[in-house]
């Protein structure tokens, strides 16, 4: 039911407690993404996440609402970091509560696949001495499109 864009580390335990609230639904699925220690075979030392705050907020809020309708969620939450991140830092967390496990799990996957390509964040990797903007991956476009094929 809410979005947080934050520079701080994600407190997964606190987010989970907030997600389920006083009356947990029957099925709760979560996903956390962490910064990988390598990028295309090279050691990654840090990651800078640029974002477009107003648009990111709107896109993620709209994504949550779409997930509610599509997967009959009772609760959801999306947390996305921005700014300077280190290897193994948490970068994104999504949680979904539904009556059945299939819906909760699918909603998490849908939110992740969609925010990867639709939410205005850009990753800049520090690889060894150099830096580079991360290019969009074909697999992410493919994964995003799968959900459009199934759209109601």
């Amino acid at each position, binding site marked *: 039911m809410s979005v947080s864009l934050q520079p701080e580390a994600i407190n997964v335990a606190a987010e989970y407690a907030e997600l389920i609230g006083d009356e947990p639904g029957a099925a709760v699925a979560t996903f956390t993404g962490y910064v990988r220690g390598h990028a295309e075979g090279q050691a990654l030392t840090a990651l800078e*996440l640029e974002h477009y705050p107003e648009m990111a907020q709107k896109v993620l809020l709209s994504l949550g609402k779409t997930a509610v309708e599509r997967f009959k969620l009772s609760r959801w939450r999306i947390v996305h970091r921005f700014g300077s991140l280190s290897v193994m830092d948490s970068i*994104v967390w999504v949680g979904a509560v539904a009556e059945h496990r299939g819906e909760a799990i699918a909603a998490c996957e849908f939110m992740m696949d969609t925010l990867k*390509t639709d939410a205005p964040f*850009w990753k800049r990797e520090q690889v060894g001495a150099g830096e580079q903007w991360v290019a*969009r991956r074909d697999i992410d476009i493919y994964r995003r499109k799968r959900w459009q094929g199934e759209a109601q």
Partner: protein
Amino acid sequence: MNITIKLFAALREALGESELKFELSEVSSDAAPADVAAVKAALANRGADWREALYQPNLVHALNHKVVFTDAVVSEGDELAFFPPMTGG
């Protein structure tokens, strides 16, 4: 009578600006309101770096925080953003 232009990530870097004002009357009239394509064309006149950045493949255009095609009509007070494909998550 202007709009706000925003640039992000590699575009922001390449052009050395993250936000600028654009006088919409440069490209728009009551009879022929401007679309995103017209604003882009005017900005591209600023130089080769602008032209290259704004006509790169896969450029994304967002008008008032929504992704749009270049035929979207731009109105006074709008916020128009240009950026490369998003890589969140």
